[in-house]
């Protein structure tokens, strides 16, 4: 058996699920994270995790319908086979988490409780209060600690991934390790591994303020991209409809608030100054419920965000003339709210100071999730219908069963491998499952599914495919030293700017100021509504920022725990990713899911039911290519969510979202 180790970069749900699965198979794991893994961003997830369950099943729901909803929700941009496999595995993922001790909310008969979530008419979301991500992450953290205690997982916490180490050319090129930096001692070193899994999460910080945590810069993905990995559907950024604007971040008010009955409204009278509780029912405009009678407040996020944007920015109907609408839970039983939504109610109370049990919350859309990410491939499973199926209705017989390997071939060594052999991408950092919009509570599922299902693929790669190569322990040290030298000189150059910094507050050279301007620009140009000319301007601005970045100066020249270095380095990588996002947004001359172009308001399947694949050129430019989506399971249909025909007009505006995001 191979003696190779596996490096997992990232200790969120995806990275931990992978670590546990791989360690369990007897392959040693080196686990890297910028924070102790228990503090990873996944801890923020609130609402829940989707899976078909017995109650829904007896109402006509099925794994297949979960699959169909996810494809429809993603507006047909996702390759379909992996999504089928994920939906089929979902109930098993829940069972496993249950065995690990996750305190899922329970019904009076001790069954797992369920709630409604966006994009489905069935209760299929499992939850642990309103801190589901925290509870799932802790369960996986505990299992990881168990393997760590047995010596099967070695943690490198407070280590930052800097660059992948690649060996060979052309078809022989493969990933054989990484270069990373200890964030305390600043030591930069290379580690060898038979395979590397990137599980580094999203890139919300490219937009300045978002619902993401502070390490979600996308820096790690950008570095892989610059080293030759492809980046796909970058323009597909999810803006969550209900966040509370804050000075440092946008705090999410989970979709579960609406799943538990929360209603979104504004006063019918523009500029109504009455307290929300004084405004009678008849004088409230429940705009989502009126426009989408079937799904109501639970239309998918892109639709809800555009409608809120339309009400506030175009119609000037926002509460108090500002960019905000009410999210109302005051009609619900306060005790039930505490039991099911306690976590988010506390957040609102703490940060805004009002009690959502008594007064409606004020919210506005905020950047939340990246459907796009590192490009990955897979091997199709056994299900190949003679023709793509149409809409699946509740209770219809399903065309395929739920056995493992119907969607993706179980254990195939290329499942969720990038275009670089031996380099994998799991969780939010890949582009695989959510197409042009992610349905709520499907992200946690895709992260854990990747770790478990594709973790097996990595084990197989190490144990079967990989030995045909030279063992990584035999590879010449110079292959690793070269990358260490590259990263050392990058770090040295940045740190050296501190000794020649006459004014650290000068915004022209300050990394924090450059990052802020990038965030403001990206939020204005590349979020809820996009338009060609505005994005051209955005690209020009990014080019300016890149020039300024070349002259960036640090205010800290220490060779010990220098956080400014880490941030400044990431700003350079974020600018690269920002360009890919903006260029993808410009090149995709249609509207699909979260990507809405005022100048191309319709979906254009003939030209754009395609994956945007970006490649980085040695001169720093990007080459974009549109590759066909692998979609022979389900036929595309119009994505209307039962919108009333009379309201068919979509919000059209060139105006930018103002301050609130």
């Amino acid at each position, binding site marked *: 058996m191979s003696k190779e180790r596996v490096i997992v970069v990232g200790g969120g749900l995806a990275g931990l699920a992978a670590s*546990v*699965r791989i360690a*369990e198979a007897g392959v040693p794991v080196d686990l890297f994270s910028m*924070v*102790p893994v*228990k*503090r*990873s961003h996944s*801890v*923020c997830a609130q609402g829940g995790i989707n899976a078909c369950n017995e109650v829904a099943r007896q109402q006509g729901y099925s794994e297949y319908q979960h699959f169909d909803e996810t494809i429809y929700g993603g507006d047909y941009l996702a390759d379909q086979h992996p999504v089928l496999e994920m939906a089929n595995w979902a109930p*098993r993922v829940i*069972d*496993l988490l*249950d*065995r*690990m*001790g996750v*305190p*899922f*909310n*329970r019904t009076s008969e*001790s*069954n797992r409780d369920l709630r409604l979530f966006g994009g489905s008419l069935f209760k299929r979301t499992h939850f642990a*209060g309103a*801190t589901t991500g*925290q*509870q799932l992450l802790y*369960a996986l953290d*505990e*299992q990881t*600690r*168990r393997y*760590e*205690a047995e010596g099967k997982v070695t943690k490198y916490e407070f280590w930052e991934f800097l660059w992948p180490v690649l060996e060979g050319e052309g078809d022989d090129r493969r990933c054989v390790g990484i270069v990373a930096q200890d964030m*305390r001692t600043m030591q930069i070193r290379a580690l060898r591994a038979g395979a590397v899994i990137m599980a580094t999460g999203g890139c919300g910080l490219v937009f300045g303020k978002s619902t993401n*945590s*502070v*390490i979600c810069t996308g820096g790690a993905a950008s570095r892989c991209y610059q080293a030759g990995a492809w980046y796909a559907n970058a323009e597909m950024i999810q803006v969550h409809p209900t966040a509370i604007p*804050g*000075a*440092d*971040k946008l*705090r999410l008010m989970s979709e579960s608030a609406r799943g538990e009955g929360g209603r979104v409204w504004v006063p019918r009278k523009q500029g109504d100054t009455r307290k929300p509780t004084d405004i009678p029912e008849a004088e409230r405009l429940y705009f989502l419920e009126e426009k989408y009678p079937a799904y109501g407040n639970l239309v998918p996020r892109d639709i809800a965000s555009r409608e809120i944007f339309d009400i506030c920015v175009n119609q000037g109907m926002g509460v108090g003339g500002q960019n905000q609408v009410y999210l109302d839970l005051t009609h619900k039983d306060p005790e039930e709210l505490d039991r099911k939504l306690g*976590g988010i109610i506390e957040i609102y109370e*703490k*940060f805004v100071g009002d009690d959502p049990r008594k007064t409606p919350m004020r919210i506005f859309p905020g950047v939340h999730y990246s459907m796009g990410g590192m490009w990955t491939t897979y091997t199709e499973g056994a299900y190949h219908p003679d023709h793509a199926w149409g809409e699946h209705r509740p209770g219809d017989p399903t065309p395929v069963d739920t056995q493992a390997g119907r969607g993706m071939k179980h254990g195939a060594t290329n499942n969720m491998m990038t275009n670089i052999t031996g380099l994998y991408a799991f969780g939010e950092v890949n582009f695989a499952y959510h197409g042009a919009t992610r349905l709520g509570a499907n992200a946690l599922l895709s992260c854990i599914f990747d770790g*478990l299902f594709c973790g097996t693929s990595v084990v197989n790669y190490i144990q079967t495919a990989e030995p045909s190569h030279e063992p990584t322990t035999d590879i010449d040290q110079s292959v690793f030293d070269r990358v260490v030298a590259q990263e050392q000189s990058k770090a040295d150059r940045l740190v050296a700017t501190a000794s020649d910094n006459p004014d*650290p*507050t000068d915004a022209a050279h*300050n990394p*924090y*100021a450059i990052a*802020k301007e990038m965030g403001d620009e990206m939020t204005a140009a590349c979020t809820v509504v996009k338009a060609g000319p505005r994005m051209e301007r955005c690209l020009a601005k990014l080019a300016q920022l890149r020039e300024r970045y070349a002259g960036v100066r640090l*205010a*800290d020249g*220490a060779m*010990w*725990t220098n*956080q*400014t270095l880490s941030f400044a380095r990431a700003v350079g990588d974020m600018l690269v990713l920002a360009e890919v996002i903006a260029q993808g947004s410009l090149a995709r001359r249609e509207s699909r899911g979260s990507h809405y172009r005022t100048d191309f308001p319709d979906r254009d399947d003939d030209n754009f039911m395609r994956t945007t694949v970006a490649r980085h050129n040695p001169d720093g430019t990007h080459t974009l290519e549109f590759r066909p989506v692998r979609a022979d399971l389900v036929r595309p249909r119009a994505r209307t969510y039962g919108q009333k025909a009379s309201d068919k007009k979509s919000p059209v505006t060139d105006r930018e979202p103002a301050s609130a995001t």
Partner: protein
Amino acid sequence: MPTTAYAHDSTAAWRRANRERALPGRTVILKIKRCDGPGKPARWESFKVPVEPGMNVIAALKHIAANPVTADATHTTPVVYDANCLEEVCGACTMVINGHARQSCSCLLDEYAPREGDTITLEPMSKFPVVRDLWVDRSRLFHALTRVKAWVPIDGTYDLGAGPKEDPASQQDRYGMSECMSCGCCLEACPQYTHEDDESKWDTSFVGAHAISQARLFNEHPTGKELKPDRLDELMTPGGVTDCGNAQNCVKACPKGIPLTESIAAIGRQVTLRAFARFFQGK
């Protein structure tokens, strides 16, 4: 100009009252205890920060990072600190604010410094080694979780059906304990938990209230309780539950309302029963 830190007055009512009267557009002073690294001397630096609506301590530290100039107009370095989620759920950003350990991300300037020129003091937690400035090394806290085997010993990650059924009351109970975010406020407040840099002593120094509570959490789980004897044996050794002096500071300091004293009492009883059992088995 008032410069005192409100050392003993940080009750919820006091904070709420401050929030109501906070002046818009004011400037507050952040007085920060800094240190360049292990073994280096500590020093104090003050910064003037213009307050924006809804600003928290983290936003103030970000302002300082972009404008690293002290109140007396000297250039300095950005302040080093630990943070991630910014919504009080990851535990990273814990520091001592006006004399009490708490999360800096949920610490609003309006609540602590409502008037022009009010001062907020920031210090690193004192029970852990300082890495730099406000960032401390809390490895010992995680080590304690390994000591008490804070996990459910499942038969691996393969599909073996659902876990045990659980009634809602028991779920609520476990959920309440499971929200512990390993922040360390309970340890900072505990008189029995003392600074220990020497890693080789972590197996015999006090585990702390958080770990005792985690032991109870897993002892209550139908599969988790398989390891109950191991956990209790560990908690009978030096540094175990008997090291607790029952000062009850921990439970008051916990931002997540973890029922720490109940857990300590429950584990105390379990340990006694186990000791009896071992005595009669002649072990």
